[in-house]
């Protein structure tokens, strides 16, 4: 690690390291989303992100699965990166 960090554009591709499927909501906002998946995604470039794994069922997931980013616009000001199984192979 160094003291100076820089921004760069990432490919949005990565692999699923592990995931948890919530069957109980601990925040009211998620009550109607059950069950939902939180995964840890290792981006091609190295950083690891937590995000929901979307557009798939938990049964179809496996560790090492290729995933790609999709952006969920929650409000005018808030957009969350989410991940779904890749339509194409790794970049």
């Amino acid at each position: 690690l160094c003291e100076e960090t820089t921004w760069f554009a990432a490919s949005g591709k990565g692999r699923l390291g592990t995931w948890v499927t919530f069957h109980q909501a601990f925040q009211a906002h998620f009550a109607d989303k059950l069950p939902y998946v939180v995964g840890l995604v290792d981006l091609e470039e190295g950083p690891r992100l937590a995000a929901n794994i979307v557009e798939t069922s938990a049964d179809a997931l496996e560790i090492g699965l290729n995933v790609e980013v999709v952006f969920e616009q929650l409000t005018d000001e808030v957009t969350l990166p989410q991940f779904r199984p890749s339509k194409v192979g790794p970049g």
Partner: protein
Amino acid sequence: VANSAYPLRDTTAVVGVGTSVFARNTGRDRVALAAEAFNNALDDAGLDKRDIDGLVVNNGPDCDRLAQQLGIEVDYAFQTWAHGRLSASTVQVAAMAVHAGLADYVACVRAIMSTSVRGGRTSEASEAFRPGSGPHWEHPQYGWSHQGGLAALSFRRYLHLYGGQAEQLGQVAVAQRQFAQMNPWAVYQKPLTIDDYRDSRVVMDPLRLFDFAVINDGGVCLIITTAERARDLKKPPAYISGMQGMRAGRQQVIFAMPGLGVGAQDVFRYQAPKTQKVYEMAGLTRDEVDVLQIYDSFSPEVIYGLEQFGFCPSGEALSWIQNGRTAPGGQLPVNTHGGHLSAGMVGGWAHLVEAVRQVRGECGERQVNDARVAQYVAGPFASVIFSRQ
């Protein structure tokens, strides 16, 4: 006997332990819970509150306010971040303080009202919402506000790396409930079978209901002094023989063992070293541990604790615990009061009390035969070994 490499070996001791009632929704505040535990610990030690000149609080009221409210005047007051993973470190600080002569008798206190502070199951008020998240790595914007999410994420990776079936984990809850049935102060004492476990609801796949700690109120107090003073008190001293600090760094994550790829960890197969500082300081080997107490807010932590310290071959803890190896009468009794999963969640402090009582031989029906050495494990590698001599 003091050792030149480790001057704190057996030079301090726990001389009094006390608990409040452990129950859900007691309606009592933290000070009342702390005071009940403190008074019980004084009785246990045969001390008067005027003897107490040190106060260390792990998870509970502010230490200065608590001293006022307990009616004590102390020369040494200290407080740690309110997390159970710092429980072993808190005991270590108290031992170092009495050894250094900063105080003669230090009371270590933990008291919280989990049922009301955290709103029971609702964790919207939790620290997950502080900027940048905390050591549990929660991401509430994705519906991960509960600390248990980290244990579920690490355990799935564990199963992938080492093999095994998620339902084998049920033996942790089953074995601890067997101990809790013999513990009159455990919150949950009803029998629990592996079928009950399999039939319980999935909360955070791969974790089920019985993989989670009880949510309850409770206070605990331990009184620590020097070995010299301890020998003149009411009960046999539980000597603090060995200690090992909590590790931190990229590979260290609470609710995981190294190598599971959560937090900032790399992924690799972990191999426990032959020995660790806590054993070297105590002058003991791992095989001499009679009772093991592992911080267990979520049952995978018991698996990780066994492997971090090498009690079983790497990657084999899930099969190793089957057939009652850690249950009553087993080769290595673990969490003999029932742990957080059954006895009650008091941030590891009931584990510490139980370790002291086991080496004193005070545990009645659940007493481990001729227990001489009890080890407590919390968080990433933090540990304390208590022994009787």
